């Protein structure tokens, strides 16, 4: 809705809204600056041992030196690849399995207890098995990532498929639609929002899976840096890798949000 002329009250309302938005941003950034500043200060003054707590400047230095010896993007690349591969496989496979379960009521009822048990199982318990099966390479970590994400993907999509409006199904059937047509023209398009929310959830799941995988078994990656840093008491390294992880995870989440905005806009027009 674009109106050329506003009432005075509306202009005031818009200004107040803008002001509020600015305030929120100032406070957000202010809190970050305050935390970083305080952290830097207490470690610089020696109130807290920077060897244990690290500090923003030491994190920056560590990242710079990682960059200098060329290992920064190597480790980021390894973790990112594992995360994205695991994410993609979990999403696609989860979607396919959910479709299968939607298609056949009997199959769904047969498999339900298995899915419930696998969902409840802490995946990390499978760590030793995964090492034996997949070795210590990236495959093991991708497998762990898939394992963490796929059940969530299945359950989320299945509940969306099963929750398709019964009246719309009745309408389709009254037109003589077969199951394939109902799937193609009704179930899939109407579960569009669920796909987006599933992607969002699975971004988080993929990071959990890949870092957990790297904790158990790895020779490279951000999770590896964290574990290694912890073992040799290089807390600067632990903090740096954690920081990079924060940035990457946030970035990936925002990408999905952007995707969602683009898609929803496209769908609603």
């Amino acid at each position, binding site marked *: 809705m674009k109106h050329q002329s506003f009432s005075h009250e509306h202009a005031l309302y818009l200004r107040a809204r803008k002001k509020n938005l600015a305030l929120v941003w100032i406070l957000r950034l202010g809190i970050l600056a305050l935390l970083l500043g305080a952290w830097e200060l207490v470690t610089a003054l020696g109130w807290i041992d920077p060897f244990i707590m690290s500090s923003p400047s030491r994190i920056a230095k560590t990242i710079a030196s990682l960059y200098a010896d060329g290992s920064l993007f190597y480790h980021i690349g390894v973790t990112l690849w594992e995360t994205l591969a695991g994410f993609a496989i979990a999403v696609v496979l989860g979607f396919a399995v959910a479709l299968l379960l939607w298609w056949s009521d009997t199959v769904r009822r047969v498999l339900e207890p298995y899915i419930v048990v696998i969902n409840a199982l802490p995946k990390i318990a499978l760590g030793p098995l995964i090492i034996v099966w997949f070795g210590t390479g990236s495959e093991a970590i991708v497998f762990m990532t898939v394992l963490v994400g796929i059940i969530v993907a299945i359950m989320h999509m299945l509940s969306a498929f099963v929750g398709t*409006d019964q*009246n*719309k199904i*009745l*309408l*389709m*059937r*009254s*037109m*003589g*639609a077969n199951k394939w*047509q109902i799937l193609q*023209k*009704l179930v899939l*398009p*109407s579960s*569009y929002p669920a796909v987006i929310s599933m992607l969002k959830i699975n971004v988080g799941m993929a990071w959990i899976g890949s870092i957990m995988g790297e904790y158990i078994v790895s020779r490279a990656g951000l999770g590896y840096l964290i574990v290694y840093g912890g073992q040799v008491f290089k807390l600067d390294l632990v903090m740096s890798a954690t920081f990079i992880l924060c940035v990457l995870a946030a970035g990936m989440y925002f990408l999905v949000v952007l995707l969602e905005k683009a898609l929803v806009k496209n*769908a*609603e*027009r």
Partner: protein
Amino acid sequence: MKNILQFENVRHIYHTPRGEVVAAEGLTFSVDEGEFVAIIGPSGCGKTTLLSLAAGLLKPSAGSIVREGSCGYMLQKDELFPWRTIEKNIFLPLEIKKQNTPAARERALALAEKYGLGGFLKSYPAQLSGGMRQRAALIRTLATEPDVLLLDEPFSALDYQTRLNVCEDVAGIIRSEGKTALLITHDISEAISLADRILVLTARPARVSHAHTLGFGDLPPLKRREQSSFSGWFETLWRELNA
């Protein structure tokens, strides 16, 4: 007059793990070509079951149902797909029935044009009023040129004023297209204002307890409501429903 829909001694039982429910028993009636029949009954008497039977979505447990030709089903809500434009919604049954030919599309569009949807074809359902949406739902139902329309309380989700207007609309369209229609409703005045003939159902198991021919001819709904005989019919049907 040709019989388009014929229920003969129909019995229908619903099975659930907890037991069975007899929804209809000894249900017999027929609908002639070009006729508008309304069925009213106490709530929970299995009205929707009856339409599902008529549409062939359910098979009767006993008895026979014969339908000449195809049917179009219209539900309480418009059930337009929000991700499709009005035009694409109207084409949906054509796609499903694999009749999506240029000629069929053109015919459907002409129908939409004729009944005032011409300006909304590229709009999405969310951009239309409730009344317009229900009209679009009717055009979608008519797109495949069904021989009989099955209407399941098609106005009950609308507010009162829209409801009277849409009722007027839909009645006009059905009459001018010369369609056969079977309406199921719990709204007595709606039945009187639309139908040529009214069947009263008993509580479960459903059976036809009374049948009336109204004799309003082609009089539109709002005009019917002004007739002096309207309240007489209302009283009669009210009594029979509550008997």
